């Protein structure tokens, strides 16, 4: 009999949880994680704390690489999946290696979203999604006195908190422009703005970015509605977009993420999705919702694995816990933690 081979694409909180659960539920099966990241499972929500020095590197990587090996999970780091073929039950890696699977979980998470008008300034914008991103921050931070934070997602607030602890001067540009999957309405914007100001942050609410001009290495002159500010770094935090470009030719039903039912099963048998990249159907509200946050991701990873291993577990989210923000259904505690 051919052995089962479960592949998990992605090694974030959802992916790693899915892999360990699969190994637990189906100990005889082969479990492989394929991740494009070069390191282990990074808790990206801890990265702001790591920058501030309050969180150790060890804590950022909660699961040691040895633990995967000891658990019988093959972890392939630094390897990108470029295609999934549900008919042949194969994935294709960038280096042209094909791997067959009997079950697949897509848990690729998201990549930082940069609104189109800002793409022209991409080289000046620092994001903070992976551990690798911390390299740029650590390189520039010591010499940076003032930092402009653009956006307003969960990470932006955590980063602001960390930078304030490092006694940096913070400008926060809270424009209310779209950043998937969230949008600010006026009330939310005022509340966040008030909290930031109270902490000593200069909030540039409602201002529009006109241009960014590099002054010297690392420093920029930022033009905002007639005024200009000089900052040493710019952080961009506009939420995440699911990193699912490699699925375009797979035939899976996609929207912003992978569309799955309440069991996290996709349109194709043997393929589930979990974490930030999954859009999950809610029978009560008759719509798809997305989740944000490490805890949610882990929970979804576990459910996807249980179901792929033959179980039948539903995602249970009370409709009251799902925010409807301008048409996007989100399950998150989000900014209230700030």
């Amino acid at each position, binding site marked *: 009999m051919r052995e089962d081979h479960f592949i998990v694409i992605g090694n974030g909180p959802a992916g790693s949880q899915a892999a360990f659960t699969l190994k637990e539920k189906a100990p005889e099966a082969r479990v492989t994680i394929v991740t494009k990241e070069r390191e*282990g499972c990074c808790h990206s929500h801890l990265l702001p704390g790591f920058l501030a020095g309050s969180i150790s590197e060890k804590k950022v990587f909660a699961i040691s*690489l040895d633990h995967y090996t000891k658990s019988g999970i093959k*972890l392939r780091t*630094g*390897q990108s999946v470029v295609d999934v073929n549900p008919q042949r039950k194969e994935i294709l890696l*960038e*280096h*042209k*290696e*094909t791997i067959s699977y009997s079950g697949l979980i897509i848990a690729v998470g998201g990549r930082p979203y940069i609104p189109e008008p800002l793409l022209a300034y991409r080289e000046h914008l620092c994001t903070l999604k992976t551990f690798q991103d911390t390299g740029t921050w650590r390189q520039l931070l010591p010499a940076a006195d003032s930092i402009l934070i653009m956006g307003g997602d969960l990470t932006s607030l955590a980063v602001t908190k960390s930078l304030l602890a490092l006694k940096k001067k913070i400008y926060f540009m809270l424009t209310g422009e779209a950043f998937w999957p969230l949008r600010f309405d006026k009330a939310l914007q005022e509340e966040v703005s008030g909290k930031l100001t109270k902490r000593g942050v200069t909030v540039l609410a409602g201002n529009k970015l006109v241009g960014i001009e590099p002054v010297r290495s690392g420093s920029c002159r930022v033009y905002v509605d007639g005024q200009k500010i000089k900052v040493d770094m710019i952080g961009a935090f506009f939420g995440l977009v699911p990193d699912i470009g490699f699925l375009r030719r797979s035939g899976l039903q996609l929207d912003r993420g992978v569309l799955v039912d309440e069991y996290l099963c996709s349109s194709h048998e043997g393929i589930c999705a979990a974490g930030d990249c999954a859009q999950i159907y809610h029978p009560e509200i008759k719509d798809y919702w997305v989740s944000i946050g490490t805890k949610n991701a882990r929970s979804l990873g576990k459910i996807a694995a249980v179901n792929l291993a033959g179980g039948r577990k539903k995602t249970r989210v009370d409709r009251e816990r799902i925010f409807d923000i301008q048409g996007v259904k989100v399950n998150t505690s989000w900014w209230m933690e700030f």
Partner: protein
Amino acid sequence: MPGVDLTIEICGMSGDGTIAAGTLLNEALSGAGFSIIGFDSYPAEIRGFGRCVTRSRFGTSRMLALSDHTHVLISLDDQQAISRISMLGKNAKVLFDNKPAGTVQEGMSIAAHTAPDADLYGMPFTDLASEAAGTTRGKNLAALGCFTGLAGIDPRFFYTVIEKKFRAKGETVLNANLNSFNAGLTYAHTHFEDAPLVITAPAPEKKKVQRIMLSGNAAIARGALDAGLALYFGYPITPATPIMEYLAKTLPQKGGKVVQMEDEISSIGAVLGSFYAGKRAMTATSGPGLALMAEMISLGVMSETPAVIVDAQRGGPSTGLPTKTEQSDLHAAVFGGPGDSPRIVIAPTDVAECYQFTLKSFELAEKYQTPVIVLTDFFLDNRVENVAAADISGKKRVDGNIYPPKKEQGRYQRYLVTPSGISPRALPGSEGYIYPATGLEHTEAGLPDYSEPVHMQMNAKRHTKIRQALADLPPPKEFSQKGPLDLGVIAWGSSFGAALEAVLKARKKGLAVGALKVISLFPYHEEQIRQFMSRCRRVLIPELNFQGQLANLIGHLHHGDVVRFNRTTGTPLLPSEILLKIQELLQKDNT
């Protein structure tokens, strides 16, 4: 700035240009000012397939041995390179071709086998070469370019060596290689903006030292050339053949001759004949060839005729492991041959010593009128080091011959018994100095005589003279603190570097250990070795043979049992395994 100490491996299929890439890498890194020790391994079969590996350890201090782990692996052929995964250290970088001709099944790519902590860098070596030069042959150069870009090394070091290597082949070939290299370099720069390796070249030496990248075999050949070698006789055998190849190109330019003989017996016979006639000659072989030469070497002993023989050891017995390293000919070199046939056996420990002691062996052979065996091994013969030019050139040739005084004309006794055992040696054709030379036992005049007193007298003479040679032979060299030692490591040949590195590391850990390098294996400096041993509570002798052949030879000089550490895997000893043994022994003593 912390010192650099990195090991890079290039692995490919025979025909991928693996060895050529390794040579260019070594030359370029040497040009950048690093100290290098490099070692290639390739298949034994003379066919167009099989695994080729080049291993280069380079750093800012002198490299004594190969390292335990590889920090960067460049795969030119994943199927071959997969076997090298076990050598990778923590967080190793793996560069591989991520655009093979077609898709491959799971497990066929090296990416399927690396540990999670390894950093994979998929780069289209073949495509880059093809686009840059119109041929895939330059994929090794493209790979080197990728590495150079990732490591942030100044590419000019590579341009210099690429030009040096390919200039003679014409502009087209040179440009194709430069283009392939540059394509790889650009790819790395554009796809990996932050150089993930960052290898900083050392500051230029205050006093510029000219360095030459040389293999042990090339150093032996250069030593022989500088000794005034007139004739080389040999029969090809791995790993000694490169000596003949080197001399075939260089010796005729100096008026000498290289003759490929029909076998090893005729080779040593011709060497004895040349020396008998007063011309310096040499042969080089490996274990099986040395076995064939045994009888002729004893003829040299009996007839007191000089000879220089290089025994490049490989795995044995018999044909054994032709492309693997071993130190298992020591007994054969020292004792091999009929009767009591003492000869000089010296074992260089690094490339510079290959030069120095080959050169010295001619003087010793002439002065003590005996065959001298220079005992090397595959690892020493094939490894390259960037040695200071001053250490491997310009040494003065010393005529070791002791000619008979004029007063002996007409009553010359070739085998005159003297206190030193050395009898003046006349060359054939010298008027009034005619003598019979034979393999039979003989009188002082050279006449056959099997009588008891003659045989005893002549045996004693031949042994006395070899003992006398100790004065001219390199004495053991000690690397330790003064006073008593908890443990002393005695090593010889190519294993000494690993032993010394292990000892230096152990001393850094606060252990009272020392190392002793033994170069002259026969005769050996009994007193100095005994003195060192007497200061050591324990003596460890690591060797690449099964029994511990040096331990057999000198172990009796220690007041207790020496500890043997033997391995016959065909690969060089590593500092870490010797260090582990040192720690294990000392820990045992303390519990």
